[in-house]
Each structure stands twice: as structure tokens, then as C-alpha cells.
């Protein structure tokens, strides 16, 4: 099924070799997820090399969010395996941070920015451990990284959409994970937020972390990501952006939903 798809990254790393799975930060093998009778995504194979910044792209309903949710154990999987550093999620939970879609929660919840970012420390705080000075410093550091240090005491419902998205990213940063899975982090945010978020992601990449983000803006793909995963219920293409971000691949992934004008606009 995957024949003819470029699976070698531009660094020369073989991406589809089973032997590499053992130490790869994030691997998916034969993953199928379905809602009722309809498969949402099927037979997905995917390996994310360390230090990569990967965009997942595809039309609406392609299963991009579902893929991340299945990887994080939020939606049930029909078949296939997901592993992080060669271990199932259960054993690697603290090495993985997930940023859900901003619209998936009710922001009218009675909590402050500080409260939400502190949630990222739940794995070490557990049920009853007191919040220490060091914990508070971690929260402050994460907030500073996304430029929200002045908003710690603000009720989350009083933030703009972009600020809420940055709070979600800060919460994930507090986990100090090695793999970050982000669901539409650039969706409906202002330009300043978009810049803030992509610079945080690029810094994570420089630190050797693996970052995977669901994305929908074709015009920024080449500047944001080094790898691209094109998805439309099944894998269309995966590899370095320079190899995968082609007109043919995009037409295959998006079908008739992508006009010639849009392709022209991004220079393809």
C-alpha cells in the first residue's frame, strides 16, 4: 500500500524500517481507527525521527485529529500498535505531551492560567503532594516561553483565542516531555500567537525533541516543518517537506477540494 512513497528523510534516515522502531521517539504500525462502521483512518505506518518537526496535513475529515487521539489513547484503536521510544504509551506517558484542540474544552471553567499550566505537573504532583517553589518556577518558566507570564492570575475565560492556545502549549511544556503531539495549534489564532508558537516548537526541535502538529495552512508548510505527513484516511505520502510537498501529492491527498489557484498561491 505504501509502495512508491518516499520514506527516506533528507538526512538519509530510513523511515519505514522496522529495525529503527526500537529507539524511535514515536512509531505507529498498521493503525486503524473507526467510528462505528466507518474507518476514520486505516493502515497507518509512521515513524518520527528524533529532532524532527513534522506537520500532518490533509483535508477536513481526513482523520488527522483522530490519528493523534488514537496515539494518545483517547479514542479506541481497532488494530495496530503505537509506541514511544519502543514502549507502549502506558510506560512512556511522562515522555509524551499532548496539546488538544482549543475548542475541545469549555473555557468558562473556574480556573486561572496558573491553574491550567500547573495541570501539566500532575504526573509528579499526584493526588496530594504540595506544590513546591520549584514547581511554581516550572509553571512560570513555561508561561514565559509562550509570552504569557503577565497573565498567570487571569481567569482563562477572559483570554483571547490565541492566548488560550498559548496556555495549552505552556501546559504541555511544563511536562518537559520528549515528544509533543499538537492538534491544530495554529487554528484560529492571531499572528503574534502563531509566531510565538512556531518559535517555541522550533526551539523544542533544536533541543532534540520530536514535535508533530496537525496543520491546515498550506502556505506555511515549507517554513514551519522539516517533515510532512499527508493523510486522507490512509497515508498519502510521508517524508521530508522538500520531497513530499509536491503538487501531485497534494492533489492526491485533497482530491478536488484543492483548486489550481490555491496551488499557484503556494508556488507549486
Amino acid at each position: 500500500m505504501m509502495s512508491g512513497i518516499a520514506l527516506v528523510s533528507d538526512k538519509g534516515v530510513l523511515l519505514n524500517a522496522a529495525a529503527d522502531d526500537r529507539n524511535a521517539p514515536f512509531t505507529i504500525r498498521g493503525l486503524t481507527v473507526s467510528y462505528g462502521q466507518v474507518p476514520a483512518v486505516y493502515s497507518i505506518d509512521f515513524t518520527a525521527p528524533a529532532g524532527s518537526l513534522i506537520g500532518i496535513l490533509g483535508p477536513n475529515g481526513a482523520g488527522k485529529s483522530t490519528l493523534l487521539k488514537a496515539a494518545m489513547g483517547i479514542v479506541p484503536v481497532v488494530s495496530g500498535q503505537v509506541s514511544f521510544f519502543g514502549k507502549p504509551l502506558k510506560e512512556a506517558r511522562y515522555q509524551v505531551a499532548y496539546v488538544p484542540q482549543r475548542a475541545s474544552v469549555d473555557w468558562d471553567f473556574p480556573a486561572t492560567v496558573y491553574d491550567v499550566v500547573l495541570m501539566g505537573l500532575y504526573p509528579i504532583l499526584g493526588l496530594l503532594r504540595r506544590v513546591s517553589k520549584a514547581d511554581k518556577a516550572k509553571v512560570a518558566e513555561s508561561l514565559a516561553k509562550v509570552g504569557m507570564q503577565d497573565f498567570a492570575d487571569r481567569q482563562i475565560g477572559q483570554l483571547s483565542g490565541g492566548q488560550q492556545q498559548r496556555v495549552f502549549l505552556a501546559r504541555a511544556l511544563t511536562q518537559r516531555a520528549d515528544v509533543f503531539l499538537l492538534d491544530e495549534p495554529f487554528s484560529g489564532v492571531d499572528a503574534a500567537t502563531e509566531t510565538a508558537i512556531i518559535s517555541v516548537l522550533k526551539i523544542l526541535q533544536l533541543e532534540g525533541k520530536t514535535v508533530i502538529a496537525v496543520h491546515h495552512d498550506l502556505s506555511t508548510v515549507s517554513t514551519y516543518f522539516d517533515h510532512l505527513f499527508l493523510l486522507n484516511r490512509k497515508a498519502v505520502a510521508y517524508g521530508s517537506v522538500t520531497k513530499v510537498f509536491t503538487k501531485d501529492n497534494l492533489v492526491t491527498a485533497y482530491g478536488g477540494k484543492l483548486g489550481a489557484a490555491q496551488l499557484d498561491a503556494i508556488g507549486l
Partner: protein
Amino acid sequence: MGSEFVALGLTPILIAAFASMACALPGNFLVLRKQALIGDAISHVVLPGIVVAYLLTGKLSTWPMMIGAAGAAVTSVILIEMIKRLGQIEYGAAMGVVFTAMFAAGVLLLEQSDTSRVHLDVEHALFGNLETLIWLQSDGWASFLRFEDLAQLPPQFVRMFMVLLITSAFTYVFWRPLVLISFDEAYARTIGARATIIGFLLVVLATMAAVAAFDAVGSIIVIAMILCPPATARLLTNDIKTQVLLSLFLALSATLVGYITAGYLPLWLGFSNTLSAAGMIATVSGLLLAISAIYGRHRNRIT
């Protein structure tokens, strides 16, 4: 406040206060998780449980009925979860299906079996028998220090107090995961907060509080207290810890004001009879919600 008050007034007030607070505590998270209707659901589903308990034991005694009611409630909670997951529908719809079906099953059981001798009192189910939960053996406050007098406390007193202790302990110990799953359940799952188990325990706890409270104070207080004090408190603060503490205070206040109003207001107005205390407590909690909905500082929901 002498011995007459301790014998006749104090225990009903305290039992009602324990019941109100035990329901309001889990109610905070149920309201935030948009599951507040669970109080209504439980009040409907306990009927088949009570009928089955009666059919099995042949008598109308408290413990078998409470166990039957709790069994039916837990069964329905499991059914609601299953329908929600398997049918991929929202919680409210699954709840509606289950509680009407369970209530219908209860009525059917009642009609088809020889239970004509059973007097299922609608008024008891709604308003409980709060005014009869008196402590006749006591002779003033000193009775709280005498073991033989304490042993004569109404059983509902001890039961509701235990339930309040259990709900308080649960809320204290599981505070962090409760807040997490109420705000962002998907994320809670990814950081190992055991969202499914905590969510299930929350509903089981509310069920326990509700079933214990039905017997003591009737379903009206249960339905009102799961919803009104938490919703009122939410409109008065933007901090969840403050909200929960405030909801306890509001539940207690509604109980005191409601009980006293029911007992004395008609007399002051020149009538000779009194009002239902449970009904008045629920009314006061509703009035507090209405007032906060108009004047609350944080009523910014309508956009």
C-alpha cells in the same frame, strides 16, 4: 435553645444539612461536567430497585430498600456509560433513555407483581419524612456527651453524617484529578489521571449521597442540592476551590433558612399549619440561584 429544640428541631435540621452538603459537594463537578441531571436520573431509577428489594425480602425495611436502590442506581450509571460509548451519543441523551426505561420497568414490576399491599407514598418519595426524624431520648445539649443517648439518634443522622464524611474525603483526596477531568477529560487521560475511573467514582458517590438522602429527606432536596448551590457558587466566583466551599455554605444556609421558614413563617402569617421543610429548603436554594443569576459577579455565560 433548650432541650426541646435539641429533641425536636436539631436532628432534622442537621440531617437535612448533612444531606444538602453531601449532594452539593459532588454536584460541583457534575455541574461543571454538564451531568447535573444525574440527580433526576437517580430519583427515577431507584424505583425498580426498591420494588425488587421488596419482592425479594417481602417487607418494607430500610436496608434492603437502600441496597436495592443503590444497585439500581449503579446499574443505570453503567448502562448510561455503555450507551454513551457504544452509541457515540452525548451524556444527556443516554441518561434520558436509561432513566425513563428504568422508571418504566419499576412501574411495570409494581403493576405485574402482587405489591398491591405496598403503599408507595408519592409524598414520602418527594419530601421525605424530615420532621419525624426527632431525637426524643435527648434532654438537651448534654446528650451529645452521653453514649446511651447518642445510640438513640435517628439512624438517618448517622447515615447522612457518614455519607457527608465519605464525600468530603473523596473530594479532598481526588481533588486534582476531579478538576482535571472536569476541565479537559481528553488531556487528563493522556497524563495518567485515570479519567474513566474517577468519573465513574464521582457518579457513584453522588448516587450514594442521593440514595441515602432520599430515605431521609426525599428526592426534592437531592435534585435541588446537586444543582442549585454549585450553580449559585459558580456565578459568585471564578475560582473552583472557592466555588466548592461556597456551595457547602450555601447548602447549609438554604437548609437553615428553609427549615425555619417552613416551621415558623405560616405561624407568623397567622396560619395554623406548617409547610414542608424539605420543599421549603429546595425553594430557598432555588431562590438563591435566581438571585445570583441576576446579581452574580461572574454571570458572563451569555455571549
